[in-house]
């Protein structure tokens, strides 16, 4: 009995302590990561990839261009060398598209001010804005939408000095561990297209009248479906020359 009492008393005394530890450890809110910490982790993940070669299907969706789906090969080498090579035909590559890996931003993150904007109400993604410290920087403002549980950039909006605003949406699959997207959609601003009829000597088959409405659209899209990434196996210099 004495033994029982003494044992029970001892355990009863320990219980509040365990509870306190439990409450302290799990009950108090976890401190949210700062924008700098998130960006650092995203950057660390991106930096795992030194180079890659991937195959892709490129689809151009611009009001004044009718183009077939192109089979392309994409070459990348850090810090920011990228080349999109059409294997069989011709592709119209929009300006700014070459910066799709965002490495230009991440290679020199110290030259940006980071502003934590919070979370997107619909997607729950962390929104971080990057403002360049240098007044002459080509990028005026970059907004990143980051999945901070997987440390993946899902969307990026970049406003540039000369090439307008473009948006990049990324969908990840089996290469998510390397921050490499399976699909990207690049949205960009297009300028008016017009050639004098005196140069083209067009045949008016009636399709021009239908087309004029579509031509008022000033946004273009390029989609790439990536496959067969070969990561960190080296890419020769000759590819980028």
């Amino acid at each position, binding site marked *: 009995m004495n033994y029982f009492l003494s044992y029970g008393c001892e355990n009863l005394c320990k219980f509040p302590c365990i509870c306190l530890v439990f409450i302290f450890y799990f009950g108090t809110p976890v401190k949210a990561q700062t924008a700098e910490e998130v960006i650092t982790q995203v950057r660390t993940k991106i930096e795992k990839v030194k180079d890659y070669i991937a195959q892709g299907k490129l*689809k*151009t*969706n*611009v*009001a*004044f*261009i*009718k*183009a*077939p*789906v192109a089979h392309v090969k994409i070459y990348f080498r850090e810090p920011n060398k990228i080349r999109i090579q*059409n294997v*069989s*035909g*011709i*592709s*119209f*590559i*929009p*300006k700014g*598209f*070459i910066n799709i890996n965002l490495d230009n931003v991440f290679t020199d993150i110290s030259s940006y001010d980071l502003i934590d904007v919070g979370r997107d109400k619909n997607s729950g993604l962390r929104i971080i804005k990057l403002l360049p410290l240098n007044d002459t920087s080509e990028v005026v403002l970059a907004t990143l939408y980051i999945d901070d549980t997987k440390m993946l950039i899902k969307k990026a909006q970049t406003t540039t000095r000369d*090439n307008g605003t473009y948006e990049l949406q990324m969908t990840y699959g089996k290469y998510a561990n390397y921050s490499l997207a399976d699909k990207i959609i690049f949205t*960009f*601003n*297009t*300028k*008016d*297209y*017009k*050639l*004098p*009829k*005196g*140069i*083209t*000597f*067009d*045949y*008016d*088959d*009636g*399709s*021009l009248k239908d*087309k*004029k409405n579509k*031509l008022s659209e000033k946004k*273009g*899209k390029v989609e790439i479906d990536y496959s067969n990434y070969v990561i960190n196996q080296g890419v020769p210099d000759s590819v980028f020359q």
Partner: protein
Amino acid sequence: MWSLLNIELLKIFRRPRTYIAFGAIAAIVFLVQLALKFDGKSYVDLLLGNLNGSFEFPDEFKHKLLNGYLICFIILTALLIQMPLLVALIAGDSIAGEANMGTLRLSLTKPVSRTEYLMLKFLASVIYTIILLTWMALLALFGSMLIFGTNDMVVLRSTGIDQIPASDVLWRYLAAFGYAAVALTTVAALAFLLSVFAENSIGPIIATMSIVVVFTILSEMNISFYDDTIKPWLFTTHMVAWKGFFYVKATEDGVTIPGSIANLPAILKSLVILFGYIATFVFAAVWVFRKKDILS
């Protein structure tokens, strides 16, 4: 009939001036190919000038763009405006030339009707036109393919760009050359009709060219009054319909549909109008010639 046709063809191909047209086409095609081989990038820069703000055009892109298919398209666009003159040189001479040399009356002593004689003359002009066009196809298409290679064909229109995969181009050229043969036959028929009225071949040739030039200018003018009234009925408006074979359909998101033609009924309508012109010109020529008092 066949032997008479042979005689007419011999008459055409024995004349040295017949070969001026072949020489002129060879020279033009060669000069255009040479210019684009050495300074094609400047031409591409001119064409894509207003897209520079939206797209990247590295040298590799320009090199691929300037392939044999596009070069041939450029040559055809330029030459099919000049070709009517070369066709009119022969067709305008076919009756008037005989009258000028004083052999027309003698020719009509053969045991064939005037209608048959005229149809043979016209047929010989059409055969000449087709041979000339084949010569141009050989030089402009196959020559350019040999020099510049092949790739996707990019057709630059005044309001947009149609890109056709390389594997989908050759049949379009076959169709386009077939159509061009009909278009040039229309010019041959016009020159042939005017030739019936004249005693000297210079008149029909110049008259044909004047009509073609005036009609072409009207066809290319952007005046809404002409668009709805005169332009749909000018044969020059429909002569450029060969280009319609290079205008493709696309899906909602702008992906080219292989093997498609943007507006085939419009091309067929243009073809019917050209055939209508040919029939009218030839019928009028026969009608006038049958009634004509042949004095030379």
